[in-house]
C-alpha cells in the first residue's frame, strides 16, 4: 500500500534525530533510505513501524492515518500491519522456525489449518521448505534472514520494512540475496522500505532512493538520477566518487582553477552559486595513457604512485605534476597495466566533470 510521511520530526532528548522528512512510496514500489550511520535513516523507519514516536508530522499507510501529531493519532505498532526485518533479524532463538513464522497468524487468531498452509507457503517462498521443525538457534545468518523475511511476509503486511537486511552476510551471499529480494518484492508487488548505508545495495534494491544527511532528506530520486546527478559533493563522495577537488572560478565560464594547485580544468557543467564548490570526477571516468592524448583540455602529466591490481580492472593513484593525487579505475582490456613510478598522462572529458556545492543548502 501507498505510504506517506509528512513533515516528520523526531527528537531524542534535545537533539533532532529526524527533521522535516517528507516522503511518498507508491503502492508496490520500494524506497531505500540511504545514508551514513547516525543520519536518521533507521529512526525514520522506526517511526513508520511505530517503534518511535515523532514529535510532529503525519504518517499514512494506505487509507489509514497511523500517526498524526495534530490530531493525536498514534496507532500502536501491533495494529499497523507493518512487517519488519530487523538488522539483527530478531528471530526468536527459543522457538522453532514454524513457531517463529506462525506467530503473526496466531496473533490474528487464525485456524490451525490455515496457519500451517500459510506458514508452509511463506517458507517455500524464501526457500526454507522442510525446515519447519528446526530450532531457530541452529541457523546460519542467511537462513535466519530468510526466517525473518518469511515471518514478515506471512502476515501480508501493508508495507515491509527492512533494516540493513544484508549487512550481516558475507559478500557472495549478499550479492545473491540482493537479487532474490528485488525479485520477490516485484513478484509480490510489495511496498518496501529499506535502510542501508551501502550504495551498491541501494542502487540494486530501489525504485527510489532517499538520501539522508543529518536527519534531513538531502536528495530523493531514482537510482539513475542520484547516481548520475548527485546534488552535492558530499553525496557524490558517499556514492563512491573518490576524486573531489576544491575549485575556484577564474572568470572564464566553463574553466576552473584547482584550489592550492596550478592546474586548470574545463567542464560543460553550469556554475553553481556559492563559495565552496568542488569538482567531482569518478575514477572510472579518468583515462590513463602512456602518450600525450589528443584532447585539448584536461590533459595532465603525472607519476603512478600506487597501482593495485583488482582482477577485472586496475586502480591507480597518480600524483599529478603540480596538482593533487587522482584516482583512476582502468579496465584490464585497456592494455598492460602501468607500474609504480611510471610517467603517464591523465585526462577526463569535460562532460564527466561535475561542479557541485560542498553540501546541499
Amino acid at each position, binding site marked *: 500500500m501507498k505510504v506517506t510521511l509528512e513533515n516528520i520530526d523526531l527528537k531524542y532528548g534535545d537533539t533532532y534525530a529526524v527533521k522535516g522528512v517528507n516522503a511518498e512510496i507508491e503502492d508496490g514500489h520500494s524506497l531505500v533510505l540511504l545514508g551514513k550511520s547516525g543520519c536518521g535513516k533507521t529512526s525514520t523507519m522506526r517511526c513508520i*513501524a511505530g517503534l518511535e514516536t515523532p514529535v510532529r508530522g503525519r504518517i499514512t499507510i494506505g487509507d489509514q492515518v497511523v500517526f498524526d501529531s495534530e490530531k493525536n493519532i498514534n496507532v500502536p505498532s501491533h*495494529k499497523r500491519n507493518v512487517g519488519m526485518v530487523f*538488522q*539483527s533479524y530478531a528471530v*526468536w532463538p527459543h522457538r522453532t522456525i514454524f513457531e517463529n513464522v506462525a*506467530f503473526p497468524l496466531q496473533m490474528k487468531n487464525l485456524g490451525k489449518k490455515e496457519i500451517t498452509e500459510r506458514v508452509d507457503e511463506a517458507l517455500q517462498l524464501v526457500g526454507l521448505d522442510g525446515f519447519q521443525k528446526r530450532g531457530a538457534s541452529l541457523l546460519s545468518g542467511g537462513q535466519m534472514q530468510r526466517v525473518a523475511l518469511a515471518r514478515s511476509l506471512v502476515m501480508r503486511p501493508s508495507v515491509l520494512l527492512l533494516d540493513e537486511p544484508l549487512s550481516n552476510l558475507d559478500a557472495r551471499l549478499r550479492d545473491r540475496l540482493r537479487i532474490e529480494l528485488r525479485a520477490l518484492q516485484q513478484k509480490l508487488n510489495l511496498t518496501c522500505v529499506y535502510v542501508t548505508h551501502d550504495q551498491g545495495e541501494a542502487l540494486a534494491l530501489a525504485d527510489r532512493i532517499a538520501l539522508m544527511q543529518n536527519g534531513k532528506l538531502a536528495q530523493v530520486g531514482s537510482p539513475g538520477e542520484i547516481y548520475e546527478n548527485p546534488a552535492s559533493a558530499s553525496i557524490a563522495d558517499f556514492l563512491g566518487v573518490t576524486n573531489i577537488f576544491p575549485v575556484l572560478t577564474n572568470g572564464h565560464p566553463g574553466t576552473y582553477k584547482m584550489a592550492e594547485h596550478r592546474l586548470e580544468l574545463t567542464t560543460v557543467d553550469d556554475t553553481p552559486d556559492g563559495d565552496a564548490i568542488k569538482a567531482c570526477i569518478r575514477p572510472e571516468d579518468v583515462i590513463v595513457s602512456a602518450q600525450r592524448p589528443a584532447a585539448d583540455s584536461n590533459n595532465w602529466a603525472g607519476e603512478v604512485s600506487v597501482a593495485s591490481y583488482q582482477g577485472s580492472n586496475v586502480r591507480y593513484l597518480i600524483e599529478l605534476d603540480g596538482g593533487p593525487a587522482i584516482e583512476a579505475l582502468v579496465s584490464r582490456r585497456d592494455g598492460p597495466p602501468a607500474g609504480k613510478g611510471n610517467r603517464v598522462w591523465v585526462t577526463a572529458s569535460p562532460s564527466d566533470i561535475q561542479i557541485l556545492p560542498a553540501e546541499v543548502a
Partner: protein
Amino acid sequence: MPTWLMLALLAILILMPVALILISAFSSSTPRPGSIGLSGLTLENFKILSSHQSVTALTNSLVVATSASVLAMFIGGTLAFLAARTNIWGKAVIYFIGIAPMFLPSLVGALAWSLLAGPATGYLNLLTRGIGLGNLFNVYTMPGLIFVLALYYAPYAFLLIHGAMTLMNPDLEEAASVHGGSLGKILSTVTFPLVTPAILGSGVLIFALTMENFPVAQMIGTPGQIETLPTFIYRLMNSAPARGNEAAAVAVVLTVVLIAVTAIQQRMVMKRNFTTVSGKGMKPRMMDIGKLRGVGLSFALGYFALAIVLPVVALLLASLQSSPYVSNLGQLFGEDALSFWSLFQTLQSAAFLDAARNSVMVAVCVAVLGAALAFYLSYIVYRTKTPGRKSLEFVAMLPLAIPAIVMGLGLLWTWLVLPLPVYGTIVVLIIAFIAIYLPQGYRGMSASILQVDKDLEDSAVLLGSTRARAVSYVTLPLMKTGVMSTVLLLLMLAMRELSAALFLFTSNTRLLAIVVFDNYDNGALRSAASTSLLYILVILALVVLAKAFGARATNGEAR
C-alpha cells in the same frame, strides 16, 4: 502499573524508612503510631558520637572491615585465579570450594567458630589441651573476628574476580605474548590490570558488607568486649528504656560511611569498566603453574576445612553431645556421649517447626515478589523512555548503601507509623527483606534484560502482538536463566538474613536465624547448634529445588 505508582511503592519501601531514621536522629522522640516524632528538633542525640564508646566502636568497625576485606580478597582472589586461569587439578572442585561458604549464613559460621575456638571450652582448645599444649585459641578477639568475617566473605571476592578472569578475551594476552612478553610480564602488565576494576570493586563491596555485619560482630565480638557500630546500635535499642534517637544518630554515621564507600565503588566500577567481553565464544588461556599446583590445592582444601568442614563437625558434635559441658575430648568418645536425642528434639519442637515454616514462607515470598518487582523496575528503566526512570533506579539501589540493621530500624518505625495492620505479622518481614534486597534483585534482572536484544520483543509487537504478550512470549522465556537465578539469589539472601529482622520479629514470627541467635544469646548452645544444622539443610534443600527449576547459583551475585 503506571510509573508514579511504582515511585510511591519505592517511597514507602525505601525512602520513608530512611527519612524516619534521619528525623529520629534530630528529634527527642522516636516515631510511634500517630506521630513521626518531628516534635522537639535537637542536635542532642549526636553528643553520643563524642563518647568513648562511639569512638571505639567506629575505630573497631573500620579496623575490622579493612582487615577482613583484605584477607577475604586474598583468599577469594587466589582461589579465583587458580580456578579460572591455571592448570590446577580439579577446577570444578576449586570452584565449588570458592562459592560453598555462601550457603552457610555468617551467623552459623560465627556460632560454629565460637564452639571451635571459644577460650576454654572450644573443641580446638580441648584438642590442644589433650596433647599437652594448653589453650591455644581464643576467637573472641580482634584477629578472631577478622578471621571469621574473612572466611565467610571471601566467596564474594571469588565470584567477582572469577567472573572477570573467565570473561577476559584471550587475544589480549596472546597479543602480549606475540609481542615478546614473558608469563610474568603478561600477568603484571595485561592480566592483573584488566581485572583491577573487579578486584577494587569487590574489595569495596566486602568492606561495606563486613562493616555492616551484625551477627558475627555480636557473636564473636561482644563476648570479647569488642564493639562495632552495628552492635552498638543494637545495644542502644535494647537498653531499657530504648535509646532510639541516639541509635538513629549512630545509624546516620554508619550510613554516611557506607554511602561514601559505596559511591567510591560505583565510580570505580563505572569508570574503569574495561570491556573485555566480546560476542565470540572464547576460552581463556590456562597458565602452567607447575609445582605450585600442589600449594594451590592445599590452600583451597585448607580454606574448605576452615570455612565448612570444621564448622559443620563442631555443630554436629555440639548437637550430638549428651552432656552440655565437655572438659576434654575423651568425654566425647565415651559410651552414650553422643546421641541424636537433641537433634530429634529440635526437629520436633514447635519453636523449630514454626521458625522453619516462617523462614521458608518469607524467603519464597521475598524471592517471587522481589523478583517480580525487580523485573518491572528494570523493564521501566531499560525498555521504556519514561521520564524519571533514572531516579527510580537510584532509589532502588539506595539500600545497598544502608546497613541492614539500620534499614530494619527504619522499617520498624515506618510500619509503626503507617495505619496498616502489618507490624507484628510475617508480612512486615517480607516487606523489609524485599526492600533491603531490591538492589541485588534489580541488578540481576537488569543484567539479564540487557542481554535480550530489544528487537526480539519489538518484532513480536510488529507482528501483531500486544506489548504484554510480547514480553511473556519472547522476553521472559529468553531471560529464564537470569530470572531463576535472581529468584534463587533472593531466596538465599532472605533465608540467611538476621540483622533486618532483629527489630521486626515478634514471638509469633520468629525465623530460623532468630531462633539460632536467641538460643546462642541465652546460652543454649546445643539447641543453637542443632537448629543451625537443620537450618543449613533447609537452605540446601531450597537451593537444590531452585536449581531443578533452572537457576544458576552464582548469576549476578550481590554486585
